[in-house]
């Protein structure tokens, strides 16, 4: 193998790729996305309830006691952004509920709370909130809180107890959460702690899978433009494949460098840079190189085996399907990095880089056993060597094969050829 020739191929691949509009778009779009996501999440997290639009809640109180108490808890009929209206007690509850539900539909009411007559009983029917909002609507929790407070208050009174005294006795314990540096855990920091592993995963995924698809396109272009035979008269298939992989790896490295710099800048801006440790960067680079070699050589072989991008895309579907597994499971892996599932997944070679980076950067990343931290990259390296060898065999034969895309049996024959 000639280093000069490999370098020449790699340089052409790099220069011709970075000159494309797709590269420039990728280079700029990702940092813009990072900044946009941070600004949006900051804006949402600092927004106070008082700044939100006031919501009107109507109550149909079949018990005749609870709505009054709820209003008493909110003297002006308002609780933050919630404005409470009690339906006419003399009206038929069923008819009233129907009318108010229409208002909810029309948008003039946020919701109607239907309080059952037996709400104070031990085996009471449920109170029902008829609302337009979807699940996880924080207003639901506020309505529920008000209703519980009102019902508890009335129960204390009925039992002859002083509700104010009882509330004092049942006051919650003050509780604080601090990280290892002694800093208080705030909701936005909690979010940053969970999102940091995802950010690493996303950058790795884009750097490995997103970029190596350029290799697939480039191989197919060389094959369909029929320049490949000229290249093979000067280079061995292995020199060509190595040069192309290195060139595209350089492209990926450039992108990842820019993206991580912007992401780190954003972390400093948000004051969460301590979440990114220097060893994380080192691990990221190691898994980037191994992951890239593994995926890129598979895609180079696929490109050589196919004649058109369409053929390649159909063969790529299983690869894509496997590689998105960590994207689907990232939350579980980040929260349970040492579960059996996470551990097993991190030894499945195509997923090792992605799952290991999630586990190691997760808040409990220090708990990943040392043997796994050493065994995973070693196991992956063995696979990289094996896959690169197989891919180079397929690449060598596939480059000069035109016609129908090969099946699995044909590919196996090429490897043994």
């Amino acid at each position, binding site marked *: 193998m000639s280093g000069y020739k490999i370098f020449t191929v790699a340089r052409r691949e790099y220069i011709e790729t970075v000159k494309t509009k797709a590269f420039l778009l990728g280079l700029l779009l990702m940092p813009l996305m990072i900044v946009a996501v941070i600004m949006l999440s900051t804006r949402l997290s600092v927004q106070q309830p008082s700044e939100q639009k006031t919501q009107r809640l109507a109550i149909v109180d079949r018990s005749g006691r609870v709505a009054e108490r709820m209003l008493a808890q909110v003297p002006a009929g308002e609780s933050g952004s919630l404005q409470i209206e009690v339906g006419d007690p003399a009206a038929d509850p069923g008819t009233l509920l129907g009318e108010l539900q229409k208002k909810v539909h029309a948008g003039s009411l946020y919701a109607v709370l239907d309080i059952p007559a037996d709400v104070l009983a031990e085996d009471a029917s449920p109170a029902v909130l008829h609302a337009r909002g979807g699940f996880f609507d924080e207003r639901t929790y506020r309505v529920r809180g008000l209703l519980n407070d009102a019902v508890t208050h009335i129960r204390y009174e009925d039992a002859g107890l002083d509700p104010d005294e009882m509330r004092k006795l049942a006051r919650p314990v003050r509780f604080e959460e601090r990280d290892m540096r002694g800093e208080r855990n705030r909701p936005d920091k909690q979010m940053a702690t969970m999102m940091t592993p995802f950010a690493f995963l996303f950058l790795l995924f884009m750097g490995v899978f997103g970029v190596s698809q350029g290799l697939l396109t480039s191989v197919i272009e060389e094959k369909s433009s029929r320049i490949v035979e000229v290249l093979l008269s*000067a280079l061995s298939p292995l020199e060509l494949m190595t040069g192309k992989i290195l060139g595209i790896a350089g492209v990926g490295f450039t992108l990842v460098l820019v993206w991580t710099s912007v992401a780190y800048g954003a972390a400093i801006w948000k004051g969460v840079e301590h979440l990114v440790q220097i060893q994380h960067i080192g691990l990221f680079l190691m898994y980037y190189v191994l992951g890239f070699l593994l995926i890129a050589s598979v895609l180079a072989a696929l490109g050589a085996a196919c004649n058109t991008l369409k053929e390649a895309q159909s063969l790529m579907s299983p690869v894509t399907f496997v590689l998105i597994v960590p994207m689907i499971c990232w939350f579980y892996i980040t929260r349970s990095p040492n579960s059996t599932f996470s551990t097993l997944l991190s030894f499945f070679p195509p997923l090792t880089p992605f799952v290991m980076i999630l586990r190691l950067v997760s808040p409990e990343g220090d708990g990943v056993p040392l043997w796994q931290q050493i065994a995973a990259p070693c196991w992956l390296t063995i696979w990289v060597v094996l896959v690169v060898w197989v891919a180079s065999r397929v690449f060598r034969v596939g480059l000069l094969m035109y016609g129908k895309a090969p099946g699995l049996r044909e590919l196996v024959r090429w490897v043994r050829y």
Partner: protein
Amino acid sequence: MTKSVAVRMEQVDKSFGSVRAVQGLDLTVPAGCIYGVLGPNGAGKTTAIRMLMDIVAPDHGRIEMLGAATASSVKDRVGYLPEERGLYRKMRVADTLRYLGQIKGVPARVLREAIPARLEAIGLASWASHRVDELSKGMQQKIQFLGAVISDPELVILDEPFAGLDPINLEALTQQILQMRAGGGTILLSTHMMEQAQRLCDSVVLIHKGRKVLDGPVREILSRVDPRIVLVEIDGDETGLPEFAMVEQVERHNGGWQCTLAEGTDPQAFLAALAGRCRVLRFEVKRPTLTEVFLASVSDATDPAAMAAGQEVAR
């Protein structure tokens, strides 16, 4: 192997499934000549060339190139223009040539001077900074040829180099090939263009259905064929011509007669006999062309017995 042999193939076989593309091919290409590989479509020419270039491995047989056992070890000394050829459409002309030169191991500083000079020589100097897809098809073919020879190789292998060229570009390419031979280079080319092959090649090999049918210097191959057609014009009774025992067939031709002589007849003996009976105004022995030899050999070669006989002739 002597230094004067550029390429040697010995009993080379190659099959693709049940199709025997090349069968027992022997070929010796001396250094410093233009050697033509001729044959109809599907004869096995491209497969033979691909085996020479080590792009396809032979099933059996031995191949030597420039004194080495495989083409891979002398790749940088061999220029190759494949039949299926293309260029990077978005790349600039000069960058393309630089790339093709560098992957042949030519240092960048050498190419900095060589590329403008070579482009100048083929009249494309002003196109150096243009993208390949801005060039006409003929221009692209010239660039492809230049890419194959930019490294000044000792041996150049051209698979159908004249395909699709207009007469002007065809002549320009012919001159380039002749110049390379004058410079001591060896050129092995495959073509369908018999006139071009006859004009350019010192030797040819004719392949049909994967087998060698004819092989040798062009002049020798043409001289092996009996010159049985003569063109005559006589002053006297022309109706007596068919009565000559030496004449097999007589046809009118450009105001004279085209006589096909009986097999084994010496044209000189016919001239003597003719001169004894009438006044001969014109007597021309028509030389066979490579096209005629090609067609005759290919039609003979469809019959295995005739093919074996043809190979005897070749030897």
